[in-house]
């Protein structure tokens, strides 16, 4: 645990030592604001909630999170520091979890900085703050899911561009897996239970159910087990590919 903390600290400091932190946070805040007010018709709706704000999070994450995750392992492999890191007295899972937690915490900071939105809605009306709180939790969990996928893809390649593009496609698949676009690929030949399994993998379904204000354990478990699975895959991929 102690070594996870040391890796976590170094990684997190790394975001702030480079322009990554500033660029990511500014873009995230600008885009989330723009989406909410222009595309989400925040004022026109005349309702005191943050639904238009959270509705765009999956799409915002789709582009921003793979950009954050692409360097996680690809950079270590390209610069050779992976050899340094993994020959320190640390286990593979400590390294994978430490780096992941730092990236997750960083997106948490970005998310936290959207607090003026919450304040605004409280000034304008009387929103259900429980729902907003749940939505924040849901958004953070979803960000973790995207990051874990990105972490695994980043471990597959030294090339950050490839890591980014592939992560976006896979994340898109997870967002859309409840939609006809994906389901129609399977309907017709796949059995019904597989179809419902695929649609139950949708980030959107789980996120939307949380952002209705219901922190259902199943939704939380969904995201946590998804993260665990992809981090496990990350460790496996690193182990397989570290010779290259």
């Amino acid at each position: 645990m102690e070594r996870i903390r040391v890796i976590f600290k170094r990684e997190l400091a790394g975001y702030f030592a480079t322009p990554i932190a500033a660029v990511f946070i500014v873009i995230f805040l600008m885009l989330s604001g723009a989406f909410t007010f222009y595309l989400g018709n925040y004022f026109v709706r005349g309702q005191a909630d943050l639904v238009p704000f959270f509705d765009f999070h999956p799409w915002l994450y789709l582009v921003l999170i793979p950009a954050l995750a692409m360097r996680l392992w690809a950079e270590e492999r390209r610069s050779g520091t992976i050899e340094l890191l993994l020959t320190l007295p640390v286990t593979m899972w400590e390294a994978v979890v430490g780096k992941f937690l730092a990236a997750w915490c960083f997106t948490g900071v970005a998310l936290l900085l959207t607090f003026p939105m919450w304040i605004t809605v409280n000034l304008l009306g009387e929103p259900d703050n429980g729902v907003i709180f749940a939505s924040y939790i849901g958004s953070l969990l979803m960000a973790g899911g995207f990051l874990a996928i990105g972490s695994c893809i980043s471990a597959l390649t030294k090339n950050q561009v490839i890591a980014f593009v592939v992560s976006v496609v896979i994340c898109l698949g997870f967002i859309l897996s409840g939609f006809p676009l994906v389901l129609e690929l399977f309907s017709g030949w796949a059995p019904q239970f597989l179809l419902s399994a695929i649609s139950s993998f949708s980030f959107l379904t789980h996120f939307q159910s949380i952002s209705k204000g219901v922190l259902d354990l199943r939704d939380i478990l969904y995201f946590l087990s998804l993260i665990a699975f992809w981090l496990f895959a990350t460790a496996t991929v690193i182990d397989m590919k570290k010779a290259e």
Partner: protein
Amino acid sequence: MTTMVEINNLRKAFGSIVAVDGVSFTVGKGEVVGFLGPNGAGKSTTMKMITGFLTATSGTVRVCGHDVQDDALAAKTRIGYLPEGAPAYHDMTPASFLTFIGEMRGKRGDALKRTISETVEKVNLQSVLDQPIETLSKGFKRRVGLAQAILHDPEVLVLDEPTDGLDPNQKHEVRTLIRAMAQEKAIILSTHILEEVHAVCSRAMIIAKGKVVSDGTPAELEGQAPTHNTVLITVSGVEPTLAHDRLMMVKGVKKIEEQGKDGDRVRLRIYSDDGQWILPVIGQAAREQGWEVQELYQDRGQLDDVFRLLTTPQQALS
């Protein structure tokens, strides 16, 4: 001598390519072992398996009695490793980088500070401690890598090309540092520079195509050179053919090669039967003939020649 590193029949295959093929050796405390070999011979792969970065296809590595695979953490705490190219997190400064490494090695507070300042002094990093590593010169980057490897005063030190890219002064500093640490540690280093073997290694190991083809002291290696114990003589005032014929009559001389002519000076390399000590008799013969001897010495043999002989198949056959 305490055995620190024990390698037994180590093998690593990448698909159908065998990078390391049945390497076995032990390294004791106080030894500095130099890995020599052409690029792609398996030096780095062997080092990566010793440090536990790569998993061996078969065979075992034990560091201070701990298997690097089954008891990885215990083995890793005892190893300091400088990977090829001295990688480091480039957005960090040497100070923050060494703090990170120290914390990963379990050091905290004052002990950590003391260790870092001692190590920084050893490798002369004081002047650049707070500059980002990416802005440092190659020599400084290498020293940062060396500093992280020796930070926790490890019992076993594995250095992959520690002096690569350094200028002669820096090379000298690094070699002095390695020699100073040698007593207390087992050190394995790889190098392309054969003079380095003389400068720091107590033992040299030549690796070719994944196998150890020679293992001995630098002097023993030189003994395998074709020119080992040959005598070089430069005389003036005599025809080369005449000099050749006269010297062939000296007892113990097997073969004479003309090495070149410069004005009336003739340079000859004289091979003896079975590597006999023929320097005095050659000198005597030259004086008796009344030749003017410009130069007369015994060649110990060149490591380069041994290296080529052992690592290029064509020459090994002939």
